[in-house]
């Protein structure tokens, strides 16, 4: 029936209904984002003279950050963290688990999925301590199993530790996304390839990948965005020792909150916002091109 969408609700009550949510989002989401831009241009500090009377210093914070060895190191560690734990770790492991479980039923599948999911849903403070316990130098379970007593994983290999930790923590999402994606691959296509004698790798390349390309892209964009912003590593190493695991979120906290340099921290935050914006735009465009807009 040629009926335009009906306005069940009048314009005025509609505005009244939307307004409270918009005000809250405006004050606690939009305004902070904009304020970051301004604060990043000042020398605002938590204490001292610049706390009482902050000065606009223009791009000085940005110039300083780019010249700062610690910031550049942090940036490089972040790249390692995102590529290592998200793109390589979570995505590959998640896909592998989904692939290995794709035609299984029963307790093994439930157990595996349950454990992987548990790692994802437990509160970050809890999992952080579980890993501290696991990697503990003296009594850690890992050293007990590997017979390497006294090996200080978190001190000697802090980056590797938080990368492996984040793979453990976040693989569930990729596993489930790929699990759902693999269900959409028509079994007849795989069987055709198998009958033609294709190896597993050939099947993956020629049959599976073309079907799940969109999912792969969605997955990579989202886990990159989340890993880039993840603060849980702070609870394991707090960026230490000596800044050797100080990824950007931790760097911002250490500089702005612990160090009190709010203006400088805001400048670095702004860079994070810009990267997030690029990633989120990519994600939304992907969703639009596939005709489904869903929240992340």
């Amino acid at each position, binding site marked *: 029936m040629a009926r335009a969408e009906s306005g069940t609700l009048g314009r005025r*009550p509609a505005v009244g209904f939307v307004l409270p949510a918009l005000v809250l989002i405006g004050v*606690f*989401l939009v305004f902070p*984002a904009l304020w970051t831009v301004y604060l990043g241009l000042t020398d605002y500090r938590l204490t001292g003279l610049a706390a009482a009377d902050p000065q606009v210093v223009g791009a000085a914070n940005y110039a300083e950050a780019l010249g700062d060895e610690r910031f550049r190191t942090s940036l490089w560690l972040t790249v390692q963290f995102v590529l290592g734990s998200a793109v390589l770790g979570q995505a590959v492991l998640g896909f592998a688990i989904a692939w290995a479980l794709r035609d299984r039923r029963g307790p093994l599948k439930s157990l595996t999925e349950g454990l992987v999911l548990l790692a994802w849903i437990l*509160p*970050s403070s*809890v999992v952080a301590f579980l890993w501290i316990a696991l990697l*503990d130098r003296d009594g850690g379970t890992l050293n007990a199993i590997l017979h390497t007593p006294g090996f200080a994983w978190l001190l000697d290999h802090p980056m590797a530790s938080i990368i492996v930790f984040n793979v453990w923590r976040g693989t569930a999402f990729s596993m489930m996304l790929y699990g759902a994606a693999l269900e959409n691959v028509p079994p007849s296509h795989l069987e055709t390839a198998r009958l033609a004698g294709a190896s597993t790798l050939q099947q993956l390349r020629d049959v599976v990948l073309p079907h799940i390309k969109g999912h792969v892209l969605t997955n990579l964009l989202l886990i990159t965005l989340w890993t880039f912003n993840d603060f849980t590593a702070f609870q394991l190493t707090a960026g230490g020792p000596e800044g050797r695991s100080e990824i950007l979120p931790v760097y911002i*906290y250490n500089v702005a909150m612990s160090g009190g340099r709010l203006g400088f921290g805001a400048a670095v*935050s702004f860079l994070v916002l810009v990267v997030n914006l690029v990633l989120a735009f990519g994600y939304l465009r992907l969703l639009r091109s596939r005709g489904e807009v869903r929240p992340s």
Partner: protein
Amino acid sequence: MTPVRHMLGTIGRAAFLALVLGFFALPLLWLASAPFDAHPSITASVPEFTLANFRALLDNPYALGSLRNSLIQACGSAALVVTLAALAAYALSRARVPGRDALLYVLLLLSSVVTGTAAMVPLFELATRLNLIDTHLGVVLTLSGGLLPAAIFILKDFMDATPTSYEESARVFGASPGQVLRHVVIPLVRPGLATIAVWAVAGVWGSFLQPFILLRDPDKAPGAVILYTLYTEGGAPRLDVISAFSLLYSLPVVVMYVFVSRRYGFRFHGGIKR
């Protein structure tokens, strides 16, 4: 495929799954054993069974209080998010609001861009200026702002899937907009509201960064922050307290997760986490 290749494939797959199980189970072993161990050590081991560790929680000045704080902050945020998101989603679903799609698009973008990490400085500043430091309200408002866009989006999906004839029918019988909402819309989308509530509670219950920044007073701090201070601050960590507390603090999230996935199925885009 030759039988040998087939067998190798099966063995390879089994070995891989065994490794995966080991990798994911290993860190969790401690959480399963230590809380019930009479002498909990940092190593996971078969416990000498006791419940004394949970009694030790009672002696800790902050442990139980922090769970109450978590509850206040989580339920407060959930109530706020569900109420505001339901109103907004209803209006956006049912009224001809100009620029509605663009608005949703921008909100969606914002919710994924303005993370706690990226906005910790201005959020701290904002809370300071509004006198919200060391208040539950500060944590609730800050976290709700981040949860609202996705909540509106998911609920609008629910509302869109509900035929308008229900509301129109009520209107023809003379119901006012408020009555339509109370008598018809809310009961109809109750599963959606429950999902959002659980999703919000679980999200706030586990969040660490915002309360860590906004609360200095340990009497206000939620479980996430107290647990962190238990193992980072001062002296040898009390493993009995930490293990029992970790388990107690984790349970609600796991229960809620099971509830939502049993009841409504798991939708990971709008799912329980993020």
